[in-house]
């Protein structure tokens, strides 16, 4: 890719890449690492990608890099658990609020982000892409390499689960 084309594309898409990685990983440092990795790939491999498909390509590379990052994180957590003599635990959400949760507009928003961490990586990705970043179902299908029906079903199930959590939060607030 030529320098000028790279600069234009990187400046145009860096925010979307970083936003997606930040919400998916819940860690700004890891998100920055992922964004850097993705943009380096834009320089090395982005030359052959048509401009109208560049955004979907970048988001797909971001999703793959985040998946790798989450896998490594899980392995590290398992090793540390074994070192401490604990049972390896599943990908449990951090009890500490992430900067994204802190940045959420309201306490309810922060709780929703907390609940999102319990979703699968694929479901969380679809929710972020659709609801936070505003991609269309067709774009999400291309980014996630899913059929349109799978995108709809995944999103429907994720929203239903988040609605149930939201209902619980509301009932707790009403009782408290």
């Amino acid at each position, binding site marked *: 890719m030529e*320098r000028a084309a790279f600069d234009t594309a990187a400046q145009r898409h860096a925010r979307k890449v970083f936003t997606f990685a930040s919400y998916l990983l819940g860690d*700004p440092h890891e*998100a920055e690492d992922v964004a850097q990795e993705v943009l380096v790939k834009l320089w090395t491999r982005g030359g052959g990608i048509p401009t109208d498909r560049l955004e979907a390509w970048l988001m797909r590379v971001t999703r793959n890099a985040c998946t790798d990052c989450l896998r490594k994180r899980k392995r590290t957590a398992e090793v540390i658990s074994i070192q401490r003599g604990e049972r390896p635990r599943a990908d449990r959400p951090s009890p500490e609020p992430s900067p994204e949760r802190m940045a959420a507009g309201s306490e309810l*928003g922060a709780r*929703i982000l907390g609940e999102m961490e319990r979703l699968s990586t694929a479901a969380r990705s679809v929710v972020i892409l659709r609801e936070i970043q505003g991609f269309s179902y067709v774009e999400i299908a291309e980014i996630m390499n899913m059929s349109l029906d799978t995108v709809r079903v995944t999103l429907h199930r994720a*929203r239903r689960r988040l609605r149930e959590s939201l209902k619980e939060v509301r009932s707790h607030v009403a009782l408290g």
Partner: protein
Amino acid sequence: MSRSDEPMTCDDVTRRIEAYTDGDLDESTVRDIRRHLDACADCAEQLDLARTLTAELRAMPKLDPPAGLLDDVRAAAGIPGSPRSVAGHNRRFRPWLAVAAAFAIAIAGALLAHHQHQRTAKAEALRAAAEVRLALACVGDITRRADRSARRQVISERLLPVISRSFGLTPRTQSRGAEPGAPGNTERSSS
């Protein structure tokens, strides 16, 4: 798909609730859903939750990348004309790197301690063997020149403490195994 001929069930409405909030349904389906919602408090609550959820998620901020990200990318990719300051590129604290470093240090420490322990144990064994040899020489010398009580005294006072220490046992003043044949076995064990 219009369902005007029969009333919608709660399941019908729940399945369409996101499409309804997104405005993706045709007019007749919207009308059917509204009719159901007017009569069903549970589905009305589901709709309220769906709207709240969508509103909260759509209000989440889009996040700006750190200011130096593109410079870091240019440096990392080796793009001509970019600063190749790798030191500046990697100056940020990375928790995962700290965890990995701590893990590596812990393993290195454990290996070093194990190695030191082995070295210490070996040195201790060599020293004990030398002491045993010296004590045996004394026993032999005294055996030739002294009586039985003197020999026992040397065995209990000089030989047994060394053997006991070598094997991590509590020294005893007198032992049945402290006959002249026993130290030879000990020497073999120690060497």
